[in-house]
């Protein structure tokens, strides 16, 4: 739990990003999508759900090129 909040703090400390809309080239790369291999994630989630007591977690929104 503490590890979670630590990660939150580390990330938000870089909070004052002023990234312009034309500087999203790297974020637009397919490997930079938060879930860039959804089929793999789905398979893994199914396996872990069947073998362990926890499930889910991963999110699915935001990032990317920010277009349109």
């Amino acid at each position, binding site marked *: 739990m503490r590890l979670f909040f630590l990660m939150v703090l580390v990330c938000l400390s870089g909070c004052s990003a002023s990234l*312009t*809309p*034309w*500087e*999203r*080239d790297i974020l*637009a*790369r397919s490997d930079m999508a938060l879930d860039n291999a959804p089929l793999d994630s789905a398979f893994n989630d199914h396996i872990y759900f069947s073998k362990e007591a926890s499930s889910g977690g991963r999110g699915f929104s935001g990032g990317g*090129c*920010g*277009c*349109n």
Partner: protein
Amino acid sequence: MKKINFILICLSLFFSTWSNAEQTEINWLNKLDLTHYGNKVIYLDFWASWCGPCRKSFPWLNQMQAKYRGQGLVIIGINLDKDIGNANNFLKDTPAHFPIFSDPTGELAKQYQLVGMPSSYLLTNDGKVQDTHIGFKKSKTNEYEANIRHRLAQLSQDKE
């Protein structure tokens, strides 16, 4: 027989390079001078190779340029790639039948206060921005085209 083959090979090479040359010919502008075009409606389109909707917009932009060139429409693509190589690769697959200007540091984008990719600005010949839209959706092309026609109509009225 051999002679005919040789000629055929030469001809096919010639035509293939000739057509390739047409395809790979990208009109990169050395500088952007909006006064250079005279009495026109200028459509500035800010794009980048990594922008998906930009890829969708190019065929439409080409179509608009061809359709309204005679009425005074000039489309200029402002490329925001930091690496021109990426832009050139994009243009090989998705050609532009309008000139491109490179703005790798985003100076022009800042000047036009760009909010999202892609963005387009319709300018009258006095350099004033008349219309702008953020993003490109195929379902909205009628709306985009209506703006172009409106500004071109104004242009022709002003001429009279």
